[in-house]
């Protein structure tokens, strides 16, 4: 698979990263280098091998259904560029 400039532009847009037009060729090249590396991995035959999800055998950690967090509106909002009446205030987004 090869990434062209328009695909690179689309990926950038989906990731909400602004990329200038003249930076796209280099970005596409970088993607292709990465994908080339992944292609190498694809040469390994993993037919019938279970995907490894952890380096040590572990069970997914669970929590109990207990409320032990929250009630920190001020902290939650403290990094917001704009907050009003307890809400995050953002530029209007209407569907």
């Amino acid at each position, binding site marked *: 698979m090869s990434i062209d400039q328009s695909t690179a532009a689309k990926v950038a847009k989906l990731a909400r990263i602004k990329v200038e037009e003249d930076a796209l060729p280099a970005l596409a090249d970088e993607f292709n280098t990465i994908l080339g590396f992944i292609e190498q991995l694809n040469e390994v035959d993993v037919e019938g091998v279970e995907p490894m*999800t952890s380096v040590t055998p572990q069970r997914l*950690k*669970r929590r109990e259904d207990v409320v*032990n967090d929250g009630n*920190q509106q001020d902290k939650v909002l403290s990094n917001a560029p704009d907050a009003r*009446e307890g*809400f*995050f205030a953002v530029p*209007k*987004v209407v569907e």
Partner: protein
Amino acid sequence: MLDLTYELPKPKVISGAKHDWELVIGMEVHAQVSSNAKLFSGASTQFGAEPNSNVSFVDAAMPGMLPVINEYCVEQAVRTGLGLKADINLWSAFDRKNYFYPDLPQGYQISQLYHPIVGEGEVLVELGDGTARMVRIERIHMEQDAGKSIHDMDPNMSFVDLNRTGVCLMEIVSRPDIRGPEEAAAYIAKLRQIMRYLGTCDGNMQNGNLRADVNVSICLPGAYEKYQETQDFSHLGTRCEIKNMNSMRFIQQAIEVEARRQIAIVEAGGKVEQETRLYDPDKGETRSMRSKEEAHDYRYFPDPDLLPLEIEQGWVDNIKANLPELPDEKKARFIEEFGLTDYDASVLTADVESAAYFDEVAKGRNGKLAANWVINELFGRLKKEDHEITDSPVSPAQLGGIIDLISSDAISGKIAKDLFEIVYTEGGDPAEIVEARGMKQVTDTGAIEAALDEIIAANPAQVEKAKVNPKLAGWFVGQVMKATGGKANPKAVNELVAKKLG
């Protein structure tokens, strides 16, 4: 097991300018799991709290925060799956669905695309006219809810509340087995009923705890049967998805409106584009959510923060062993054990609280009589004051007491209604009230006869008329009832009147 037989309902047919068209509908229902805490954090799920107060740093997606799964949410999803007679997957996994929106601080929703926790199941959807359809469930997966954006508090800004962010949802995906707007509503109603029985979702649509995305397509008559035979989707039309509806009425309207839109396109020689649409109830139309189209590239991948979710068969078996009696079984039992009609059994099992109430009243009593009293008197009275069965001032034991007094002929049906009103407004033990207020039915024929004799003696003209016209006997019965304050046994009065006048 359930042994009720139904006929299939007829699919909805809409006449276009050229053909008749049938509808094919599949649904994705998002049901909020009833739990104290969120799916991956310890913040509360409570509705209506101060904005951004039920938010942990995990929900706010602060750097370095890691999700830890709430085991009870898993249990609730499994319980729901079992309630829908579905396969439970002992191995499931979480994926990230990536998109940007102000109410999604992580920039992705944790969901289960590739390995959902629940597989195929089924729901019997009854239409109330003796017809029913078995709708197949494709899967149920767990996912995080997003926050809430409020657009009308400021002309230039949207306000975001993250209280709902990270609350556990179950997405219940049906096969395209639903054939009309009424069936769609009945399907949601049935899911809601089952989940309320299970205690896994409160089904509150107004609060958004139950919402649906509806996939609608149209086809010519006969095409759907070919699809069912082959499971080949090419027999069906291109579908459009109407997003995020939380009203039964709007869901039905939207389906009809969308079907008519598609029919107009196809009959004009055009093609339906597969897309996401939004229903506008004010304008009565669906419109394209173009902004969603580009964002539709969700770039799912396994969430590296979460190991696969492995559960044990014994744990599932334990949940299964403790499932409550579900609506279909309960209804069948009410019909079989108490001899109720299909209709009465449906009314009484509509919600779990009513069913439990009736069960308690009917236990060891005449089921039909109990059903009449619960449905006609109690429900009627509660409805008048907009009360729920859970707020009923008359307890099952009290209503049972009234029914016992009727069954033992201690009070007449008419007095029973007065007694019910007293118990409803004042409370108290029915038997004691009857005793204390002298409401007992007079079955002593001597007393009835004395009252009747007095009336006959006082009304010689009426007696003569009644001898010619036997219909006038009713007047005497009425007079006796009046004289005894309604307490005379009507059967005894009738017999005596007939004897004396005859």
